[in-house]
């Protein structure tokens, strides 16, 4: 039996990071994510890890990448405007394949928007925020316990696939307090990056001959190598020629897309006989679950598909659902973003209807139930 605690989502995120072995935090204060930084500011000095409040969001992201390259498991947490500012350096970490975890506690936007209200309108930015083609892993927990365990999973995926991992949840889940159990050490598996076993003279930091995820040497461990945000060869030095750039970018995408079976995670509720499916995540997923219970009491055959991995997108699962239901309802705290992915995967095989809201309040179960009745 682990420890039982009453924590808010942001605190559970920090606890999950520490459980995963996080020993570096670089951040900048921003509502509604600040409690992650505050928790780490208190805890990291106690466990010998490094805590930095940097001068801005950009430097915070930079420090996290530097910390990881020097061998730490590194975390940053932010929200809307800060997430925008981090994008360039996130792309750097993607191209240079430096593991790190970025938490985005989503609020309303654009611009300063609704700092104290929930939003889900950064979900496409999680995928496409930085310029260029790039691999993205983005997890979307909805419960405090889930934020804890998904944060552990985020670190594990980041170390395993040598890539940044985004955790995107919303202000409501971030600030909500729930009872959670923190498992004893060793209960949840912990993954650490694969280090090279070859002598330094033979080390190629981006060697793609033995798999899509090359072993990663930390700085100062005898493997003196070059890291650059320019497209690079297997030795890490700039390359400005065909076909290397193309093939290497394909590998970056492939190391995530080809491992969807390992990365994609979701929860299905009463989907077996469902004639209407709800696709919802985060706080909207919680409302949807209540709506499903209410609808079932009225004899309406409705189920919930709740993605815990949003990127890579659960394409096969959504396609399969689309071929056996009349309609998919997509409630989201945006004016319609993830619905386009659902439509793309449904390919016209069923109706896809959205419920959109951006006024700083959640979509309530009654709204979802009404839409379900409308489309069934």
């Amino acid at each position: 039996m682990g420890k039982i605690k009453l924590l808010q989502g942001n605190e559970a995120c920090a606890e999950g990071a520490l459980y995963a072995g996080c020993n570096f935090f670089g951040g900048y204060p921003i509502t509604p994510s600040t409690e992650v930084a505050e928790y780490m500011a208190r805890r990291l000095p106690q466990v010998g890890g490094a805590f930095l409040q940097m001068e801005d969001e950009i430097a915070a992201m930079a420090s996290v990448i530097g910390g990881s390259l020097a061998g730490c498991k590194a975390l940053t947490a932010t929200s809307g405007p800060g997430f925008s500012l981090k994008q360039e350096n996130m792309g750097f970490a993607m191209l240079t394949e430096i593991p790190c975890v970025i938490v985005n506690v989503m609020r309303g936007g654009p611009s300063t928007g609704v700092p104290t209200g929930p939003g889900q309108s950064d979900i496409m930015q999680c995928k496409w925020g930085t310029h260029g083609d790039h691999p993205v892993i983005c997890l979307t927990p909805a419960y405090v316990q889930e934020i804890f365990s998904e944060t552990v999973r985020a670190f594990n995926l980041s170390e395993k696939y040598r890539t940044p991992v985004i955790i995107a949840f919303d202000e409501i889940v971030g600030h909500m307090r729930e009872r959670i159990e923190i498992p004893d050490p060793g209960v949840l598996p912990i993954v650490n990056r694969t280090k090279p076993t070859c002598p330094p003279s033979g080390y190629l930091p981006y060697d793609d001959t033995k798999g899509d995820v090359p072993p990663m040497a930390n700085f100062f461990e005898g493997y003196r190598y070059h890291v650059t945000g320019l497209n690079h060869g297997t030795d890490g030095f700039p390359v400005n020629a065909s076909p290397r750039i193309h093939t290497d970018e394909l590998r970056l995408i492939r190391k995530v897309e080809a491992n969807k079976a390992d990365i994609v995670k979701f929860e299905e509720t009463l989907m077996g006989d469902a004639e209407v499916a709800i696709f919802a995540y985060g706080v909207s997923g919680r409302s949807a679950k209540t709506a499903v219970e209410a609808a079932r009491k009225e004899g309406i055959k409705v189920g919930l598909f709740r993605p815990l991995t949003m990127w890579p997108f659960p394409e096969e699962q959504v396609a399969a659902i689309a071929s056996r239901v009349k309609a998919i309802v997509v409630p989201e705290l945006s004016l319609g973003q993830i619905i386009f992915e659902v439509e793309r995967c449904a390919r016209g095989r069923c109706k896809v209807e959205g419920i959109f809201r951006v006024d700083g309040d959640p979509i309530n179960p009654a709204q979802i139930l009404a839409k379900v009745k409308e489309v069934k």
Partner: protein
Amino acid sequence: MAFDYDQYIRGGKLPHIWCPGCTYGIVFKSLLRAVDTMKIAKDDVALVSGIGCASRLPGYVDFNTLHTTHGRALGFATGIKMAKPDKRVIVVSGDGDATAIGGNHFIHACRRNIDITVLVFNNYIYGMTGGQYSPTTPSGHLATTMPYGNIDPSFNIPDLAKGAGASFVARGTAYHAAGLDRLIIEAMQHKGLSVVEIINACPTTHGRRNKFKSPTDMLLWMKDTFITAVAFDKLPPEKTAGKLPMGVLYKKEGLPEYCETYYGLVERLKKQREGRA
């Protein structure tokens, strides 16, 4: 015996990208001689840069090298130093990289007094993108984005560093290369944030548009303009026109270094816990 640069240069990575007449090669060699004098193991050095001509330097050197995003080298370097405070972290930057897009990181690194050595290669121009004015371009000078002459007031980098709290501030030039070795060594020996502004010449995008007929003219300008801080301070005010001081311009020992303070806190908390146990 001639200095063996090859022991520090990565095989097959030269020739460098710098134009004929560029003075970065002079500074590059000075940095290698300085590190050699300090007898620091190559494994223990991280050389970090942002974007620009100077920022290509780390790629040629056999250290742990990191070529980051424009202006952000100090953010990355701060993360590395906090993760491994016993290692040596050196940042190579340019005038635009350090004081325009990276200005915020520059002043805050100075304020924290973290033990990083920052070498700012000041060539008064954005060279890599073809000659746009930077925060150090002298007023009136021509640049592609100041085609009628620069109207922007310019930064004095040592003053900026000192004002922001750097505990070691120096200025050297590519012309005074021997003195530059000593400045870089002294900067690395200093515990805390050390800044060395290094005056450089970009004949290709700055000099030829601004009445320097050759790269040599730019070096001669350095020779005529920069005098030691000691000599500069002795000049009567009316004779300082057209002269600038070089050497160690400011140094304050004994200020708390950031990592020492942080890990001192970690130790203190550990002792408190042990005391309670």
